[in-house]
């Protein structure tokens, strides 16, 4: 099973990298870009657990290590 995890800064937390990319895109003429957030993407290959158990385990991984809940939020998908 594979977990695809996205970690981004929470709403309201200043994202200096996102701001820089936003400005650069606007400078390139992509005026339609209203906001940019830069985050991390992780892929985990998992053995064993499936379904709810895997979801529970991945959530715990995110809470304990992969995201810092003070500043970051996360979301993930599980693929067989």
């Amino acid at each position, binding site marked *: 099973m594979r977990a695809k995890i996205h970690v981004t800064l929470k709403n309201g937390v*200043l994202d*200096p990298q996102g701001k820089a990319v936003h400005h650069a895109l606007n400078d390139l003429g992509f005026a339609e870009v209203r906001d940019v957030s830069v985050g*991390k993407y992780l892929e985990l290959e998992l053995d064993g657990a499936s379904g709810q158990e895997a979801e529970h385990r991945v959530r715990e991984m995110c809470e304990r290590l992969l995201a*810092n809940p*003070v500043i970051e939020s996360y979301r993930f998908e599980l693929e067989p």
Partner: protein
Amino acid sequence: MKCGVVVFPGSNCDHDCYHILKHIMGWDTRWVWHKDTELAGLDLLVLPGGFSYGDYLRAGSIACFSPIMKAVADFAGRGGLVLGICNGFQVLTESGLLPGALMRNRSRSFICKFVDVRVETGGTPFTAACDPGEVLSIPIAHADGNYFADEDTLKRLQDNDQIVLKYCDASGNVTEDANPNGSRLNIAGIVNEKRNVMGLMPHPERAADPALPGADGRRLFDSLLALA
């Protein structure tokens, strides 16, 4: 005073800290390897600056699962003095021993320069010899020093007098211009509620040897001297 300096893979200010504690302050100082699990007999533990585990994932995030960190939490719980400098501060926030988080600098750049910080409280073992309002000139050297905490946490820090150092101008005015990295409330250093765990981004160990220009960092070590 018996001191320990923790060495993580990627620590690079460990020798500076060791030098100041042992040779300048004259304290009994030993190395503490990150795989050690024993801190018996120590009074002060320093988590030095550097790039533990290459700053992978987030600065300090992997180091806080080193074997030694369980012992550090126990040591802090027993009232032992813990000083986290720069990466050490990041490790302390990641491990939950101090509130908040240290984010990428507002400028996105690594900043290495002397800054002025104002001592907000003398009511900690780390600043007991300082006058409140005293301005110290101490270098910073970081890319991730932008202190963030939510409004409730900031209020709690203020109400409990836990903000120890704020970035300021040379006259001690806490202004936006004097904020090098975007930290909330210009915060450069804080203590925990029990006041025995301090984290700060500036490097006092780089301004504490009389052979080098700038000795204001010595004020923090002199404060600890009163306990020695």
